[in-house]
């Protein structure tokens, strides 16, 4: 750890993503996510004119931001940011008021259809605490998803992040997101933004 605090992060290498949806399904089974809502999904964006067209795949998951606005707005203090950076919702406190959903710039939260409380991706912290990687990272067949401690210069994720240009979605929101992307296509991000409206 080199004396520094842990800061967990996910790095998505979009050059390696083949749009196979393994992450979406691994998450559904790991976290028992009901139909109609997702914690992680793969956005597919078409771009360009034939024959110079292209399709982009963009896996979306919670950014577990450094300044999580969802935690700030929660009226019952159900949103909690752990020291290692994971943001999660205490299911015993949440009253399902949707403030956090309205505040989240990424739209990654949903109301569980049966429990009526807010839920989202928390990088499978039950697995992380047991020394494992999140289910989506473990499932990814092409190693497009990386998980690790950004503050540890020896971790694979820091090494890859140091060697490549990395971006985040909507940096202007000021939340300091910690799901990073390599080769993030600006138009794919625009496509998400236009969907929000």
């Amino acid at each position: 750890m080199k004396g520094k605090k842990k800061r967990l992060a996910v790095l998505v290498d979009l050059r390696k993503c083949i749009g196979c949806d393994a992450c979406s399904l691994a998450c559904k089974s790991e976290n028992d996510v009901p139909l109609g809502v997702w914690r992680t999904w793969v956005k597919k964006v078409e771009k360009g004119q034939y024959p110079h067209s292209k399709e982009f795949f963009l896996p979306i998951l919670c950014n577990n931001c450094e300044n999580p606005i969802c935690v700030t707005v929660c009226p019952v203090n159900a949103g909690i940011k752990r020291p290692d950076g994971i943001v999660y919702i205490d299911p015993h406190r949440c009253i399902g008021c949707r403030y956090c959903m309205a505040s989240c710039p990424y739209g990654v939260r949903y109301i569980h259809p049966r429990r009526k409380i807010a839920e989202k991706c928390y990088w499978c912290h039950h697995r992380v605490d047991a020394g494992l990687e999140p289910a989506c990272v473990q499932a990814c067949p092409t190693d497009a998803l990386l998980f690790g401690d950004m503050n540890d210069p020896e971790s694979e994720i820091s090494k890859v992040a140091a060697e490549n240009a990395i971006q985040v979605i909507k940096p202007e929101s000021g939340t300091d997101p910690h799901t990073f992307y390599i080769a993030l296509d600006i138009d794919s991000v625009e496509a998400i933004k236009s969907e929000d409206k």
Partner: protein
Amino acid sequence: MKNGFAWIAGTAVSFGSTGKAATDKQIDAVSRTSLKSLRAIPTTCEQCPAGCGVIAYLDGEKLVQILGNPNHPNNQGGICAKGIAGINLVNDPERLLHPLKRVGARGSGNWQKISWDEAYTTLSNRIQDMLKSGRIAEFIVDMGQDDPLLARFLDSLGTPHLINRNILNNRNRNAAIAEMVGSSSLIEDVGRSRTILNFGTNPFSNHDLFIGIARRLVLARIEKGARLTTFDVRMSETAANSDTWYPVKAGTDGIVALAMANVIMRRDLANSDFIEKQTDLSVSSLKQLLSPYSPEMAERESGVKAADIVRLAVEFATQKPSVAIFGGGITDHLNGTENARCVSLLNWIVGNLEKKGGLFFPRLPGHKGATEKPPPNALSGLSRTSKGITEIKEANGRIDTYFAYFSNPVFSEPDCQSTARQLKNEKNVRFLVVMDTHLTETGMLADIVLPAATYLEGWGLRHAPSLDLVPIVNIKQPAVSLLSAATALRSPDFTVGKLLDPFFRPKGEAVEIGNVCLELARRIKGNVIKKLPFQNTQEFVSKHMSSLLGPGTQEGMEDLKKKGFWIDQGINKDSDPSLKDTIDLSKSPKVRIKSQTMDQSPLPGYQALESHKLKEKNEFILTSFKSTLTGKGMANSKWAREIFHENQLWMNKKIANQMGIQNNDKVRVTSITGSLTVRVLTTHRIHPESVALAEGFGHTAVGNVAKNKRFKSTDRDTILIWWNKKGNGVNPMEIIERKTDPVGGGLGSKDTVVRIEKLS
């Protein structure tokens, strides 16, 4: 024994000393709710032919997660959506769990529960009758999935008719490769290539070695800087992730490859040493053969620019190692075999056989003295398999009993409506038995349906080809319904020994096909039982394995169960040439570019498809494609259907707009065999002369999820199906013509010309 830790201890490795591709990562996981360790059972996935090593995780008795086996040399921990959806297959509330007998007319859909005993008696009596009167050829077995015990059972019966779907799916490809090199498959070493030309295969979504090859392609491209170029009529997932995509007119890939080969030969960039020594043609005769195929001619036929062809050809011949790979997109045509031979020619002229980053013969496991040999290759089955009931009827074959195992021809065969008519006619097919996990469209027409165990509920061995040239054997062991010790004690057939062994029962009354064959053999007796002297599938697997491993088996079997696979580090390596890491090509037969058996065209050449010359403006060539989220075992998967629940007709945006068709408009698609109404997806990702439809939609049976219906069940999710208003797509097989490539004998299922009319 506690169920807690099932991870592989570092000391458990007992095989080999080098550990070439073997890693020893832990495979444990924790429960999300109780934070207790989950029980991890390594096994082999059978959702597609790739045979990836997977680990099934159980919370108590319930299957909760399936992830890739990080130690498996092929998939190296990767898994696809199909593999994870195995959970849906096992836990599906709509699974077929009891043997059923038809009541009323065939196809009326009224069923009566029967006992397995009755089902066995009926079937064994029919088989005995056929054996006695010498009519065993009237027993048709339609296999959607290979099983070693089923294969043995059929062998012991003599010569029943076989319809082997795994062979049929790749028939043109296998025929072409077998003709040239004797083995029906070759391993494409894409992970170590620098230049990869991909003709019509989609390894990022659907491939016979799916995850293993996709992973190696991606890593070669991103981490080692390989160039991947894809030729396809539509932008497949692979094309989207290639360096360049060349949309090519359907069925013309052959001439592109020939023109490239011509450029390489003309510029003297070919490996003439390999051509002279290892192929049956000389450099000069090859030059002569290729001289008519100029890049300009290829441009006129295919639409790929001549300059691009020349550039790619030079790159292919100089930026080595290079490899040309191909798949269904070019072989499922009436000139499919020819296309495959043309693309292979590219590999031969640069000398790509048994070379790093090129092509390799598959390495098979097992020492020389082994009595249980892995099946040599699909070649032996190639001549024995019929294409389908239509072809059997055309050859005036009589059918007494038609047994379909994990096969659904009424849904998945081209021109499936005529198949349905044939199977429905009781004069044609006197007795129809279907064994599957669900009540499929074919099952609806059956006289008896039998509940099959899923791959997570049975024993088996698979000899999947290894991508790293280390022979491997995968074990399939039951993960689900491993009974607890307490339940085992209460069981009527309890013996003390069973406490030591995993003792399991598939869900409901489902049974493994192997056990069905063994029980039938016991009832038929005679010659049949002599060849199947096993109590159950587990005994068969351990005997088979001990024969492969040689002495010291007990330890080996236990280790295999813990690891899920076995790497053959070369027992008696010298005695069996197929085990050697390097094959001495000078001692093996030459590559036969000139065919001895394909009389129609002894030399590879380009055959233009007459039917593809479109006459009207509203005519298109229909391509069907497979997605990761559809296919065998996926039809009723709620998670897969949630993402992909309706197949829209892909149409080039420009052309569609010229015809006044907008995105989501409804159109009628008509071919000779029928017509469909479908919504259009206008896109820039398809060739203007082609339209594309995904396979695996438009189910009328299987289950409510497959039919996109919301319903109440023991699974709380099914009431949440939100895409029920959208319809469940169309089955492209209804309008695809049943035509055969005369050279290879495979189906030309991507050659149907359709007319498109806008519906107001």
